[in-house]
């Protein structure tokens, strides 16, 4: 019988919650005594309490009978921990190891002498890191901020008129992932291990750390003030950079996962949770289910981008990417809550799409060995001329009129092309040197940043002006080589990131 109170003043029987708490021994002694007295006279409540207690006892007994006899095989062992124990970051403090070898007194003297020798003769790792990047003396591209992963930590470099200036070396970030600058370049969010670091680029001492685990993702709001992140345990929160505080928007038990996607005006965030795609209003916290995944056993729908007017959400299937297949694209009609598959397939690059949505609402798809541009608003399709090869990476100009593409397998210096869908024009952009082109980022109307890779495996960042008379120039070299992600493709944003800054 339903009831909210514990004692049945106006009821004949106790409610189920109280009887369960009684059966599980969770009540205070005095409450326990009262209910025990009631049960002595009430067969209905007694039957209910006995049923709960019986199920609980039986579950407990069966679990113990089964699990207490189970033993793991020799595969569960200490070897992996032992192998890692003495590697950096060291869990064994230097003093602890020293104490095991020599007494404290001589150790202090030895340590002092070693420190002196080190200071006198060894270049600092910061110096080594900067030397290895071989930064140029000058620069004539748009103002930008760059992050480069090196063996000596993550180096932040500010590019401004005629100047390439290292602004910070974050020595603790030796294995960064998903480096994301805010739009104004004031903040950088970067993951390492089980921590999401949010660091002020002007003053690295302003530094927030957030616990995360596998499956976490993050993205800055269009105005650069707020970072939306999922923590891998299912929680989605907003971190306000100025206030240095997080607001939970989706609790962990709702299972929000992957990268949250901001609408272009910052008024909505799309995220995947359970078997559905959701829309979150960051101002009010109001959440609404956009569409339900019709095939949750075979497809994992994740959001990719919003249309400019926020009426359409582009989504894709991460399961296909994980299997090494070409993922399908989906169009979510936000107003009608309708999901439609877009003909053809796309290409994954790490956790993102290698072929993003343009500001003209077009997305590249591969259909039966030909490339087709699909307008996600009206569904209109435009076949790309056959001589234009399938790109390994692509980025759209801010006005959506041109696409910069990387042709896979082209000889070094010959892999960058510009393509204008309106007139089918394809223009090669030759780069000096033998390094092969890997990724491209459009920075302003007439400028590209291109990531290249040398035969030796060093990663380079190039500034490529598209105006006549200006030459491409290398910004840095010897950044770390990225690893491939579980979803395939090089994860360049784990080692190199660049953000064009507004002109000051």
């Amino acid at each position, binding site marked *: 019988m339903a009831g909210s109170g514990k004692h049945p003043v106006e009821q004949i029987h106790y409610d189920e919650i109280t009887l369960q708490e009684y059966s599980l021994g969770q009540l205070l002694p005095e409450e326990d005594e009262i209910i025990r007295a009631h049960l002595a006279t009430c067969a209905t409540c007694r039957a209910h309490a006995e049923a709960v207690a019986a199920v609980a006892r039986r*579950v407990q007994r069966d679990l113990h009978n089964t699990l207490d006899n*189970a033993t793991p095989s020799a595969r569960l062992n200490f070897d992996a921990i032992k192998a890692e124990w003495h590697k950096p970051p060291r869990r064994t403090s230097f003093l602890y190891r020293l104490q095991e070898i020599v007494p404290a007194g001589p150790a202090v003297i030895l340590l002092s002498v070693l420190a002196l020798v080190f200071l006198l003769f060894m270049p600092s790792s910061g110096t080594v890191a900067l030397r290895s990047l071989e930064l140029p003396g000058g620069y004539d591209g748009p103002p930008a901020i760059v992050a480069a992963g090196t063996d000596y930590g993550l180096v932040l470099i500010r590019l401004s008129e005629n100047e390439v200036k290292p602004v910070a070396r974050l020595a603790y970030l030796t294995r960064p992932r998903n480096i994301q600058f805010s739009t104004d370049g004031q903040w950088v969010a970067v993951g390492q291990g089980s921590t999401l670091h949010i660091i002020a680029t002007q003053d690295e001492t302003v530094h927030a750390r957030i616990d995360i685990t596998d499956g976490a993702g993050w993205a800055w709001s269009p105005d650069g003030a707020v970072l939306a992140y999922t923590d891998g345990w299912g929680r989605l929160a907003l971190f306000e950079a100025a206030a240095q505080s997080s607001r939970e928007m989706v609790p962990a038990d709702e299972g929000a996962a992957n990268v949250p996607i901001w609408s272009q005006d910052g008024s909505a965030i799309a995220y995947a949770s359970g078997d559905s795609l959701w829309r979150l209003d960051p101002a009010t916290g109001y959440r609404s289910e956009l569409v339900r995944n019709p095939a949750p056993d075979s497809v*994992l729908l994740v959001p990719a981008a919003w249309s400019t007017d926020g009426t359409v959400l582009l989504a894709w299937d991460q399961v296909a990417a*994980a299997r*090494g297949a070409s993922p399908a694209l989906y169009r979510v009609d936000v107003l009608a809550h309708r999901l439609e598959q877009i003909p053809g397939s796309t290409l994954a690059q790490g956790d993102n799409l290698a072929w993003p949505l343009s500001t003209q609402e077009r997305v590249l798809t591969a259909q039966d060995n030909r490339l087709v541009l699909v307008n996600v608003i009206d569904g209109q399709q435009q076949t790309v001329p056959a001589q234009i090869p399938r790109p390994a990476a692509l980025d759209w100009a801010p006005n959506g009129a041109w696409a910069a593409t990387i042709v896979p397998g082209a000889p070094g210096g010959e892999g960058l092309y510009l393509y204008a869908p309106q007139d089918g024009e394809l223009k090669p952009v030759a780069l000096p040197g033998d390094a092969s082109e890997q990724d491209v980022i459009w920075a302003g109307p007439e400028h590209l940043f291109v990531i290249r890779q040398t035969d030796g495996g060093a990663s380079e960042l190039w500034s490529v002006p598209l105006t006549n008379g200006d030459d491409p120039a290398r910004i840095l070299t010897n950044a770390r080589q990225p690893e491939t992600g579980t979803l395939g493709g090089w994860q360049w944003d784990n080692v190199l990131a660049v953000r064009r800054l507004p002109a000051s």
Partner: protein
Amino acid sequence: MDDDLLVRRAQEGDDRAARQLFDVYQLRTFRLALGLLGDSSDAEEVAQDALTYALLNIHNYNADLSSFSTWLHTITVSRSRDKRRRKILPSIPLAHWLGLGHQIRDHTPGPESYYLRQEAESGLLSALDQLSPKLREAIVLRFYADCTYKEMGDIMGCSLNTARSRLRLAIDKLRAQLGEEQVRWLAAENIR
């Protein structure tokens, strides 16, 4: 030596203390994972992962916030959730990338999984398999790991009241799956 001392020594870098902690907790962690996942191969993987993470990150453990065992249970539950999630999102095994076929991992069911399967064919363990992962977590943490509601909430990342209601819901579902007749029989058996 008690756990607190072992943890302190491991935090100072003593690998022998870490080894002792591993020895103390490996069975408990494996069995908890087995209770959560029901597959001994997956449970071994999760237990290895959880113990490795916990011991290599033991400097992050704060004894003021929880006991070491609650902290380790939290990591184990989290890794078990990851394991389930990865089964939905298949990844290509490392061995496959390296062209080694399936030599690294032996997928042959071990004696534990055989025993579990035999048990699961009847009664409550079979009903347990029908529960959602969160309700199953509540049952295993409460009835196997003997956690309090507060500890369950900490481990599952929810409030005490949510932990309580998950347990109630889980028991309700188990009762519904068993049917009133079988529950009455169980109750009568306990009285006998």
